[in-house]
């Protein structure tokens, strides 16, 4: 799942640490989210959406994933 967190953060001229403090998560979590290595929970995704004043769908770009259960 891709997301626009990095783009939105840069547009607001924020550092990863500032965003992490605002979301009450560690900087490492912000880095992992931006790199797409970690998928946020619904709760964190909502927190991020509220922070940027957007909807979850506008930040997180869902893609159809092929998994064993979805075949």
């Amino acid at each position: 799942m891709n997301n626009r967190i990095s783009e939105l953060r840069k547009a607001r001229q924020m550092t990863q640490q500032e965003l992490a403090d605002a979301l009450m998560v560690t900087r490492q979590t912000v880095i992992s989210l931006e790199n797409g290595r970690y998928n946020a929970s619904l709760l964190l995704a909502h927190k991020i959406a509220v922070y940027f004043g957007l909807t979850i769908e506008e930040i997180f770009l869902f893609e159809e994933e092929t998994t064993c259960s979805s075949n």
Partner: protein
Amino acid sequence: MLIKLISCAPDFETTIKRRTRLLQGLAVLGVIGLVCYATLVPNSSLPDFVQGLYAGVSCGLIIASAIGLARVAWLKKHPEAWKKAAIQNNDEREWAVSSKALQTAALATFFLSVAAMLIVAPFSLAAFWALWGEMICFALILLIAAQVYARIL
């Protein structure tokens, strides 16, 4: 990490209270171990290394809990460090990492126990049955936990 997983709570204040109680419990265990070492062990026929194990584990528990309690006391006096620790404690990625690490450790322990059981069987039946019991316990806990979580989640 284990203490973190055991003492988890929705808010950091409760987590710290639980952690403090857990550390105090560990310290009491250490003291009990030392009392046993001082009173019961000298009159027993235990081999030297087992006697040493009593003293070592007991001292280890006391030192580890003392360090943990000192850290808690330090956190309470430093609001900035407290805030940082709270964020780290409640961070969902940190939980995911701990959870994954615990899963990996549990699986590795299980399969290593199977290997150890096959290796030690010709040398020690007691060790074989101890490992067998450990694996049965693991499987039972896994089944019970799956049933419980299936109802909760």
